[in-house]
């Protein structure tokens, strides 16, 4: 499935945007309009920008992004569901000069992998986590995630998430920001162009925090899952803005001084 993007600019023109080098030139398996693709691209751009592709190791999660490792021109591996931070810890401790990135969904990071992400952060593990919060278990076909909004209908909360049964959605950036080992914890959103640009900047900062050995860094990305939300891609982005952003306020939850002065 090699794509065949031509990069010879038309007469009198110059290239202003092309596929980042850190991204393998294949089509992803993601559904149309799924922001996993955007998140991938941003990470790849950040890697290119910092020139760290050669020393980056990507830890993919179990979730829709299970094949993430196949989309990057970097070394990569596949963690057990929720355990990416532990696996990344193992890798990073062996060679702290590598750039180790985990890419995790909300089921992966905020449910089964809660202990691992919290302790990676608490230890100040110098890894970077991209946390794709799409308020649902995408890969398994749309069950409730810990981040599913109140009243949101999913395959396992068919009458809408009920606080009496399932409690309220968990805000992981806020939780991780309380941990002393975290250096940079921010929430961004992928629902429009402006926010995507901000997300990119945050990813660059997070990687820089890692490269400078400042501690654990995470960028939470509010994301869409048009397939399991059962709405078109553009409506899904609106849904992110209208429903997720109010409950998951965008912003910087922890930026230690050393990161600020990067």
């Amino acid at each position, binding site marked *: 499935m090699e794509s065949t993007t031509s990069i010879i600019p038309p007469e009198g023109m110059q290239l202003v945007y092309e596929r980042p080098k850190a991204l393998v030139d294949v089509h992803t398996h993601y559904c149309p309009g799924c922001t996993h693709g955007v998140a991938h691209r941003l990470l790849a751009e950040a890697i290119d920008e910092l020139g760290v592709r*050669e020393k980056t190791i990507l830890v993919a999660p179990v979730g829709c992004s299970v094949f993430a490792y196949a989309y990057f021109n970097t*070394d990569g591996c596949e*963690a057990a569901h929720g355990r990416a931070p532990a696996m990344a810890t193992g890798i990073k401790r062996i*060679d702290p000069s590598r750039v180790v990135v985990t890419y995790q969904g909300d089921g992966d990071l905020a449910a089964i992998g809660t202990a*691992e992400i919290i*302790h990676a952060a608490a230890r100040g593990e110098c890894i970077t986590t991209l946390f794709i919060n799409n308020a649902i278990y995408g890969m398994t076909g749309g069950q409730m995630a810990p981040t599913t909004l109140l009243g949101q209908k999913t395959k396992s909360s068919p009458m809408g998430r009920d606080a009496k049964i399932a409690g309220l959605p968990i805000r992981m950036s806020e939780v991780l920001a309380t941990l002393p080992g975290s250096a940079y914890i921010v929430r961004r959103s992928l629902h429009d162009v402006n926010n995507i640009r901000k997300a990119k900047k945050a990813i660059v900062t997070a990687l820089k925090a890692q490269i400078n050995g400042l501690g654990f860094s995470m960028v939470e990305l509010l994301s869409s899952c048009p397939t399991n939300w059962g709405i078109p891609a553009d409506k899904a982005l609106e849904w992110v803005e209208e429903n997720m952003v109010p409950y998951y306020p965008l912003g910087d939850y922890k930026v230690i001084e050393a990161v600020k002065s990067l």
Partner: protein
Amino acid sequence: MAKEMLKGNNAIAEAAVRAGLEAYFGYPITPQTELLEYLSKRLVELNRVFLQAESEVAAINMVYGAACAGARVMTSSSSPGISLMQEGLSYIAGSELPVVIVDIMRGGPGLGNILPSQGDYFQVTRSAGHGDFHPIVLAPSSVQEAIDFTILAFELAEKYRHMVLLAADGQIGQMMEPAELPPMRPLMEKRPDWALTGAGDRPPNIISSIFLVAEEMENYNKMIQNKLKVIRANEQRWDEIYTEDIDLLVVGYGTAGRIALTAVEEAREEGMKVGLLRPQTLYPFPDDRISELADYVDSVLVVEMNAGQMLDDVRLAVGGQVPVSFFGRMGGVVPMPDEIYNAIKEAYTKTTAHKAA
């Protein structure tokens, strides 16, 4: 090197260090904790990697990560902790990584107790979690063997790119005995080709246990099964004593095996024609030799510190040729030589009765 009085857990830890252990991730649990404690000092002093994980689940996944990075890596635990590692073990099995796991078995099921047991035999020999896989399983019966098998574990792991499990019971972990440590070996000089070290100029390395297409998964499994065939052909290890011209063969491993030796010797003093085979590898099980011996004994007695697990393997090896009887103690009870002696006597009497008839 001279013999020193060494505690099993510490001996395994130091042997691992001398085998070139580069990283350890673990979680405290009795009766293996000294192993972790020892390494918390030793590895840090050597500037190698020691990390107490937040759980056994995290520990095994850190091991998974470090193994992906190409390091010589180990974890250790005891029965409940090994249960928690099953998923991680299966991922490691699905990724063909050479790691060493130490299980200092204790009484179960459940929280059970912290006394010596061999109740994990099935869990360690039959699989590593879900899926078709067998780790290589080494079962030391003394502190010296614990040392030797630790070294061997790393060698086999790397030779076959395969998981190796050192399965000892709490008694081996807790006792002190004179034993000799090998000299210090150097650390690995170069990461293996497949390791995740950053892609640099080469094509990216990927380590994954996902094979969505059934045929690919099957091919991986076939490769593993073929490797296991080679391992079964080459790596069966056991110790035997008094196995010439015997009527009764006793089979026992680890602590049960060494205690059985005392009982066998007593029985021989009484004129019984009894010998002992002590499997040192539980996987691959020394089928071939047992099957051979089954040709000329009248019966086999299996001794374990469980309800009869290796028993299945012995029965499979014996293949119905002669009766196989069993003596076991469970739940942390360590059998005394006299109990095993009695079991031998009983089995032997039946054997002789059958001869008389």
